[in-house]
């Protein structure tokens, strides 16, 4: 998985690959490849490695960015609240309540993942998978997936307590840092594509939530977050390419309709219930949407 994401990074920064000294490439590519650094963890955002310098004076886009900033802050607040429900259950030693609160706690992280991922050290601390570490006992492996492993694989809720405390602390840091983070318009425009890419390249394999199989919660959150970005940017895209707006809307509807059969009450069915054919169908719809969204930054003059 990491190798695949790394490939995406390299393509994303391809202009830098032609620079004479190649320094940018070395930096970006290696930052995620050190075991334990977590910044390149499978779920990390690609935005941190991309050129976000594209700027704009367009009032429609700038207003969309403003609104998006508000959305991100609201999501982070909800994220902290929902995660506290999860971590409180862990601290109370209630493994069933903890398991039930796991996926809902991640949801509001996944809606804004590319932006949250701009705070790189937090991304690695809260959302890294074991693949970026020596093994399941590596003390550097922290965050949701470490706790997921302890709850589902080990059935050891007590061992998860220190990681729950750490997760709360890291998300508090995230909230503080995001409050002061400048949000480049290019990051917003790329964010939608990044969220869909995220699902279509990696999560479709079911490796994200491999112990709990709650991947569909993450899918739905990624799509919801991408939907939000798209909704805010639509007026600006509409002015430049009305056909693209229709194409993207169609793509979102297909993906959302494709997920619908797997809804289960307020949540989602275990990803392990999907057949290979089900996954191939979802993957194709996602890849198609990713193709459409990849032209948004260019259309807005932000790449």
């Amino acid at each position: 998985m990491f190798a695949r994401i790394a490939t995406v990074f390299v393509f994303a920064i391809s202009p830098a690959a032609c620079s004479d000294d190649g320094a940018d490439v070395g930096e970006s590519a290696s930052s995620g490849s050190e075991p334990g650094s977590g910044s390149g963890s499978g779920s990390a955002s690609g935005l941190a490695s991309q050129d976000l310098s594209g700027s704009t004076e367009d009032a429609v886009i700038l207003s969309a960015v403003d609104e998006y900033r508000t959305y991100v802050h609201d999501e982070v607040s909800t994220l902290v609240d929902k995660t506290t429900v999860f971590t409180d259950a862990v601290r109370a030693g209630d493994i069933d309540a903890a398991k039930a609160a796991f996926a809902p706690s991640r949801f509001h992280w996944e809606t804004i993942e590319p932006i949250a991922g701009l705070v790189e050290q937090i991304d690695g601390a809260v959302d890294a998978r074991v693949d970026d570490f020596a093994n399941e006992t590596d003390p550097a492996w922290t965050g949701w997936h470490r706790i997921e492993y302890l709850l589902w694989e080990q059935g050891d809720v007590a061992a998860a307590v220190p990681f729950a405390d750490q997760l709360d602390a890291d998300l508090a840091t995230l909230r503080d840092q995001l409050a002061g983070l400048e949000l480049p318009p290019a990051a917003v425009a790329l964010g939608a594509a990044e969220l869909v890419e995220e699902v279509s390249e990696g999560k479709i394999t079911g490796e994200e939530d491999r112990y709990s199989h709650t991947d569909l919660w993450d899918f739905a959150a990624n799509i919801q977050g991408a939907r939000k970005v798209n909704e805010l940017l639509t007026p600006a895209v509409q002015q430049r390419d009305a056909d693209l707006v229709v194409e993207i809307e169609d793509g979102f509807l297909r993906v959302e309709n494709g997920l619908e059969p797997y809804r289960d009450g307020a949540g989602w069915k275990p990803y392990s219930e999907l057949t290979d054919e089900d996954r191939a169908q979802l993957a194709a719809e996602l890849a198609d949407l990713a193709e459409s969204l990849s032209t948004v930054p260019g259309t807005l003059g932000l790449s």
Partner: protein
Amino acid sequence: MDTTRALILRRHSLLLGGAVAAAAVAGAGCSRGPDDEQRASSSSPPPTGRGFHGATQTGVATPAHAHSLAAAFHVLARDRAELAEALRDLSSSVQLLVEGVYPPDRDPAMPPAHTGVLGAVSVPVEATIAVGASLFDDRYGLADRHPRELVTMPFLANDRLDDAWSHGDVLLTLAADRPDAVLHGLRQLMRATRRTLSLHWVVDGYSRPDAPGSVAGRTQNRNLLGFKDGSANLHVANDAEMETFVWIADGDDQPWAVGGTYQVVRLIRLLVERWDRTALTEQESIIGRDKVSGAPLGLDAEEADPEYGDDPTGKRIPLDAHIRLARPRDAVTERQRMLRKGFNFQKGFDGAGLLDQGLAFVSYQRQLADFLAVQQRLAGERLEEYTLPFGGGFFFVLPGAQDSDDWLGRSLLDA
């Protein structure tokens, strides 16, 4: 970021300087070599061969290329209209590949319109579209269009068919003189059909094409058993042979299928370690030809008729030799010929440390029954000890696109 920004500025200044074509391909490569010099010249070479339009697709009755690839897909289109859209998109992309031209350049702020793998100048890539029997199930209302003989490839002699390597709704076959061109072609076709075609299996490899005008009955091509492969093949330059043995004609089959042909793909692993431990005399006796020269055993020339009439008991060429079973050269079986365009592949090694190499057997024939008759004769041949067919499938190559209003698949889908 400074270097990135500098480069972006450089690209913009190129644009402003009017060198639009050069800037548009700037992302295609970082070399400072011939590519850059070529950028000043036109964006593509003139198309080769007969061109994309015609009664048949171009990739069948054309000389073999050094590099080939076959990729099978599941169709995910929700209805017939979406399937038509997918085939139209695919057809446009195939045309660009066949003609060796790139799609129009895009604004450099957009993802580039092609892979850039080939550099500034594209090269022709043969690409053909074929469909499998599963496309004619109840999804698209095509049951009444089913090519008469098309079935899901059944168990044939010695098979160990693996579902992960077998069958498919659509098969794309690509061929070019360079391996990068084949991979470029696959990516271009797949990006045109992300939503509707889901990759099922893909295999690529190589062969050794014969020079144009080489002597009939001789080939330079060898399979990984080390034997010449294709000495007695049909000749693509021989129109009469193509008409007799390859192309569906009026009255043969479904009316829409005229100009198409049945395509067989057999992915055959060759147990090369065991073969390499087999005595040369045994190898030659199993095949029926001299390993080096390719001549039928006991004769001098590769192109020689094996003269089975002089050898009724198989003293010179055993009765169960591969070439004798495949083509006994009697009146009945001489009507069962096919155009073979297989290629050698290798895909690593297995858990026992044995090389996973083999032959992607590919044949085109007017009647699938002819292929099946040959297979039936080959069943139980001694060569089976060294072969393991594990995948492939039966497909039907769509007729050509007649003109610029036409597209591959139109005759299949139109009412």
